């Protein structure tokens, strides 16, 4: 896809990338309504600046995420300027935006790898359970847990690279 100037281009871009953009918007804004607003604003800004998109320079996905990042900053500022009300709702995210984006990418990559690998990484690393315990629970040798950790990390790396991550 070249410049994003036609309404049909926007429709195609939305079909391809809205899920991820929305996922990150929810993650960083901690508010579904604001996240919708952010995604809508992102595509409108992309359409307005569509003739400046150059696929030779970077992917459409990267470009859209760069726009969303700015939109999230703007919305975050607007929200900070409003007085807080005690609504009992979820506290907004306080992570710095770059870190929130990286965290969301790791979580998204974890969702994309195979279930066996994800399960083992979650139990052994995130929940700090001994390999032997997880092996017994899953009914596999402990060596299998170790190899799943290895292949899980490799798969995670590939998934992250697909999302534009570089060392």
């Amino acid at each position: 896809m070249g410049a994003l100037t036609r309404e049909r281009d926007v429709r195609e871009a939305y079909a391809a990338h809205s899920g991820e953009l929305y996922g990150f918007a929810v993650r960083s804004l901690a508010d579904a309504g604001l996240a919708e607003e952010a995604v809508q604003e992102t595509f409108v800004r992309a359409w307005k600046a569509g003739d400046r998109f150059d696929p030779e320079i970077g992917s459409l996905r990267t470009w859209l995420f760069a726009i969303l990042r700015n939109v999230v900053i703007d919305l975050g500022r607007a929200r900070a300027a409003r007085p807080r009300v005690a609504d009992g709702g979820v506290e907004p995210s306080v992570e710095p935006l770059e870190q929130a984006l990286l965290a969301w990418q790791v979580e998204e990559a974890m969702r994309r790898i195979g279930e066996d690998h994800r399960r083992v990484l979650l139990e052994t690393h995130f929940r700090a359970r001994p390999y032997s315990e997880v092996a017994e629970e899953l009914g596999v040798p402990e060596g299998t847990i170790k190899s799943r950790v290895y292949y899980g990390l490799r798969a995670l790396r590939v998934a992250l690279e697909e999302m534009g991550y570089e060392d």
Partner: protein
Amino acid sequence: MRTEGHRDWKLSLGAFALGDLPPDERAAVAAHLEGCAECRAELRSLEGVAALLPLADPDRIEAPAARPPADLGARIEAQIAAESAREGREKRRRRFRLGVGGAVATVVVAAVLALVILPVGGGENSPAQEVHFASVPKGISIDAKLEPHAYGTEIYMYVKGIRSGTLCRVFLRNESGRTFSAGSFRYRWGGDSEAQLSSALDLSQAAEIGVHAGGRTFTAPVDQATALVGGAGIDPA
């Protein structure tokens, strides 16, 4: 050095990178790494990913992925369509409201008076005139805007609903009834051209504006909103 033993070492590198190995196993892997460049390279690659894991929240990983509401795409398309339409209007930038009805195309033409010998006037001080042609057949709308300038008058014609290709001749008449041609244009469906020409006739001298189109002539007074229907046969050309 591709042996079964080597493969076993490699499979331990994930747990090594994450710091999960018991001390004795860790020491053994470290000893292997000393002499194996391939495993050292593999470890560096895994360590980069392992360093990112603490950023992730396991509860969020296991939660169902957030999906945008089904109608969000349609809302975005609607906003873009609205902004696109507004941009088009701003480009044409008119101070002048067209008549209602979007089904018919609109032609905007700036028609200019032909060069004729005219009395000198102080027209620049006259207010701009917006003229609506009231007595026209149903489905047709004709409006005009006349702007005074030091060199004469500019005329913007807004015509809707007549047959495509119709030749329209525009004229002004002064108070003594003399008719001055203001040039001609063809009405086109969906036309979106804009022309700005100039005229020597001073707006303060103009009493009436007329359009001759399709064998009929429509006129409207310049200084009041009451429209007149001129008789056929007034041919300004």
